Structures are given as C-alpha cells and as structure tokens.
C-alpha cells in the first residue's frame, strides 16, 4: 500500500492528475466520513473533504515520502474540520439543534411514499442521537473520539495525526469517553 501510494505521489509531483484521481478514490470515503462526523452536515463535510484533497495536491512537493501518507491527509482534514467548527462557534447552539439531522430529513422524505418498518426508523433515530451527542463534544475531544472509534485508528497514529504525545491523546480519549458516557447512558 505505502509503495503504491509513493509511486502515485511521484507521478502527482510530475503533474499527473490521473494519479491524483486514483489517490482521491482511495481515501475519499475515509476523509469524507471524518469530516461528516466532525461537522454533522453533508454539505460542509463535502466542502471540507474536497478542500483537504486540493491542499494535498497543492502541497504535494512538501510531503515527506518517508512519512505515512494517510497520516498527512488525516492531519489536513482534521485541522480543516476543527477550523470550520471554530469559525461557526457564534451560532454553535443553533447549529447543534439542526446538525446531524440528515438521516431524519431523508426519512421524512421517504416516509410519504413508503412506510418504513418501525425498527428501521428507530435505528435511524438512534444514529442521529449518537451523531448529535458527538457534535456536543468540544473539538479536541470530538476529533480523538472520531479518529479512534469511527476511523478505527491506533492511539499511535492519532498522536502522529494530531502531533501530540500519546499520553495527551489518551487523556483526551478518556475525557471524551466520560462525556459520552454521561450523554448516552439514558439510551
């Protein structure tokens, strides 16, 4: 995998956009998912994920091929997501009310045509609730929780992505877990 990516990066450095497209294809779902779970909104997630890949392309010459490519792209996407969260702080509470409701909106559109089994409705509602609770976490806890439990990365990889000591990552995960425990225990 690393060998394949390094080959592609060499081609991208020469201006090969097909090689770049292959790299985008390979990572788009992971990066989109990270942005979506950080931001709770499909349009914002798409916007930020696209921006992350454009930055990869623009800055490909500064990428150190001795390092892991996925760590680099995850770092760019995480930082962009956190910047976006901080920028929308003033209307944070308003956003939190409506954020993460894509599934429900989707459901209400569907429901007029087909009656959905109750169990499926419940499953969608549960997912929405969980997403909303993740969005309530302060960004420094939200990022580690998403990277750990949704992207399923190791503590070491998360430390490298966030450029933090592993101990700090663990502390943030502990606090994030405690916050989620209180928020989700009634479910």
């Amino acid at each position: 995998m690393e060998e394949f990516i390094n080959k592609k990066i060499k081609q991208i450095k020469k201006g090969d956009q097909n090689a770049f497209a292959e790299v985008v294809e390979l990572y788009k779902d992971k990066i989109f998912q990270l942005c979506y779970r950080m931001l709770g909104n499909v349009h914002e997630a798409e916007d930020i994920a696209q921006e992350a890949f454009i930055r990869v392309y623009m800055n490909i010459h500064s990428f150190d091929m001795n390092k892991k490519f996925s760590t680099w792209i995850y770092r760019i996407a995480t930082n962009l997501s956190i910047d976006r969260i901080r920028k929308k702080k003033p209307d944070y509470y308003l956003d939190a009310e409506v954020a993460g409701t894509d599934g429900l909106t989707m459901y209400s559109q569907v429901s007029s045509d087909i009656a959905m089994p109750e169990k499926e409705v419940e499953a969608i509602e549960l997912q929405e609730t969980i997403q909303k609770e993740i969005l309530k976490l302060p960004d420094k806890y939200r990022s580690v929780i998403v990277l750990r439990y949704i992207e399923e990365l190791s503590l070491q990889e998360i430390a490298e992505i966030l450029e933090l000591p592993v101990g700090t990552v663990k502390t943030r995960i502990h606090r994030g877990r405690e916050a989620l425990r209180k928020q989700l225990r009634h479910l």
Partner: protein
Amino acid sequence: MKCPKHVVEMIHKYLDGDLHEDEGRELKKHLQSCEDCKAHYQELEKAVAFVKSISHVEAPADFTQKVLEKLPKEKRTVSTRR
C-alpha cells in the same frame, strides 16, 4: 463508601488495552463487588459501542470529479497540451 479514583483510571486503561495482568485481576475483583464502578464501566462500554455502531458514510458519487474540477487551471492544461 467512595471508590478510589484509580478504579476509573484503571477502567480507561483497560479500554485502551493498557492494563497489566495484575491490574486486570484487581479491577475484575473490584467490579464484582462494587455496583457503582460496575455501572460506570458498563456505561463507558455502552457509549463506545454506540459510537462504533453509527454506520459508515460514503463520499458522494461525483466527489473525485468535483475535486479535479477545482484544481488550478494552468496546471491542468500542462498535461493535456501537446
């Protein structure tokens, strides 16, 4: 009786796979006898399971195309020009 703070710390170490064998035995023993700590542990496990359970999302179908369209124009023409 209030449980020592280090029990919660041990639970987190356990969840991170960092707990030593002897600590594991100590934690297990404590959880068997303490309802509060047992509930705390179960709630943490439940929270993690919930987060892990939210289904994976995929990027929109035209994602790659849209990214390519946003790349700087002058660089795009270099590769296509004869």
